[in-house]
């Protein structure tokens, strides 16, 4: 049996002192719900990200290249697998319950995976820009996360995501040094994915955000977003690409870049399952899930059948 706290103040003092909550602790229900919702969204996003990428895996230009991108997507699905198990341990929902909610459009996943990867350039942009954004967010959680099981699996997730980002960067560099067609394609991908990737960080963190207060996250959205802009604007410009942000400003004295006004409407639409590819994405995933129900039904019943035979 885990620890108990006499009051929320007592619990928050424990968290403020760097305390780590474990699954068998008698944590306040609001904390349990908040950490669960965060993990569930992360798990869903890893899975839906894998589904976004899978559209292009069979079309990867190169045999060993295909093995590498397959390994990357396999990592993403593996992250989802770990996260669903850690989420299920919180006993808010079962693992099948989480998947069924996802495929019924009842639960959330990151905005970027409500868009379709329409070209190979999009595939590269995802593993470069989007993975970098996701990695920055995860690092900020990992640094100081109060929920022990999540923090521990984030260590592995982050090390793999770092590798994905480098792979994306390497592929972006080949395109940057490539033909006119390649560069045009990637510029289009940048035009399409820049804002969704930037919006992955979410709007500015509200005062009193419980995720920060309970040390589930340790950095404000706007800080992470600004540092991502700071990294990618000069990098992409140095390869001759254009950042699709007319309001982008440069402070020469500090050599810093600041993005222009952000239109949050597209983000809001994705959260309401009204993103450009939300309907197809959910419908396809639900159809696949339904098509393979016969397998799960038999496997789920297998222990019962075995017990029946033994008796």
């Amino acid at each position, binding site marked *: 049996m885990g620890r108990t706290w006499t009051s929320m103040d007592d619990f928050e003092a424990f968290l403020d002192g760097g305390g780590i909550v474990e699954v068998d602790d008698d944590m306040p229900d609001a904390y349990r719900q908040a950490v669960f919702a965060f993990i569930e969204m992360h798990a869903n996003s890893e*899975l839906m990200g894998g589904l976004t990428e899978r559209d292009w895996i069979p079309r990867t*230009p190169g045999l*060993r290249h295909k093995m590498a991108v*397959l*390994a990357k997507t*396999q990592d993403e699905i593996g992250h989802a697998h770990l996260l669903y198990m850690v989420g299920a341990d919180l006993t808010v929902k079962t693992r099948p319950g989480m998947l069924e909610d996802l495929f019924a459009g009842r639960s959330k996943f990151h905005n970027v995976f409500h868009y379709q990867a329409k070209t190979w350039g999009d595939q590269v942009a995802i593993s470069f820009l989007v993975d970098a954004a996701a990695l920055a967010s995860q690092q900020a959680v990992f640094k100081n996360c109060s929920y022990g099981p999540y923090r521990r699996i984030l260590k592995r997730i982050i090390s793999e995501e770092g590798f994905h980002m480098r792979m994306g960067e390497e592929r972006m560099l*080949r395109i940057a040094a490539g033909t006119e067609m*390649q560069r045009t394609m990637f510029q289009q991908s940048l035009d399409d994915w820049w804002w969704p990737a930037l919006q992955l960080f979410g709007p500015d963190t509200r005062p009193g955000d419980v995720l920060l207060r309970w040390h589930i996250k340790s950095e404000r959205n706007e800080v992470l977003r600004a540092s991502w802009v700071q990294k990618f604007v000069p990098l992409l410009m140095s390869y001759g690409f254009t950042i699709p942000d007319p309001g982008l400003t440069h402070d020469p004295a500090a050599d810093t870049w600041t993005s222009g006004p952000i239109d949050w409407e597209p983000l809001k639409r994705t959260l309401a399952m009204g993103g450009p590819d939300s309907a197809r994405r959910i419908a396809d995933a639900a159809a696949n899930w339904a098509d393979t129900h016969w397998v799960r039904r*038999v496997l789920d019943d297998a222990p019962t059948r075995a017990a029946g035979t033994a008796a």
Partner: protein
Amino acid sequence: MTGLGSAVREFLLAFADDEHLIGQQHTEWIGVAPFLEEDLAFSSIAQDELGHAAALYAIVAGDGDPVDDDLRIDDLAFGRAPEDWRSAQLVEITSDDWAHALVRHWLYDAAEQLRWEQVAQSSLTPLAEAAARAEREEQYHRRHADGLLDVLLPVPDSGDRLRTALADLLPLAVGLFDPVAGEAEAVATGVASAPFDSRLDEWTDRVRRRFDVDPARFLPAAPTGRLDRHPDFGPLLVRMREVIDLDPAAIW
């Protein structure tokens, strides 16, 4: 040994093409297999098969001395005209049903084991080495397919789905044993120990024991020599080459 000769080259390409296409077909299942562990297992198997293909193409590209050069490997893997492929139709057909994919995985891997055994003592050292590496992976592939079939076959509904898929696939699976041009030369030079179809009875026996059917019912009318492409092959090659075909000068 110096130089493969065109016959042995054909023999190796047939094996490489089969490994390439079964791996390619398996990649279609990532994210849409029946459960997450299965997504991971199936994509690992796909990766292994693509790796075997790459190893075999590397031997061909280097004329017996494997190259470590993606462009030369990919030239063989993607650059040949359909009539120059030597794949079996089993790996060319589209499988959009999980029962179909699982049965194909089992049938293919049962044959693949025997096929690697034929070259385990090859006079072509890199091929014998590839065989040893492949078998270490293949035992897990077979265990994976068998583990699922052990549970799914005895249950009426799932068993029926799998037997329907088997009836569909078996004639094409037997085609894996169709002698390819160059095989006689490969055997004569010790690249392979014996013609692959000398193992057909053993494979047939395994199929019979696994699925409790008589494969003799499904024997193909005549061997094709792996020269006829299945109608699904054309669209498959277009899909595999979609990005490559955008710009012949591009390196990705």
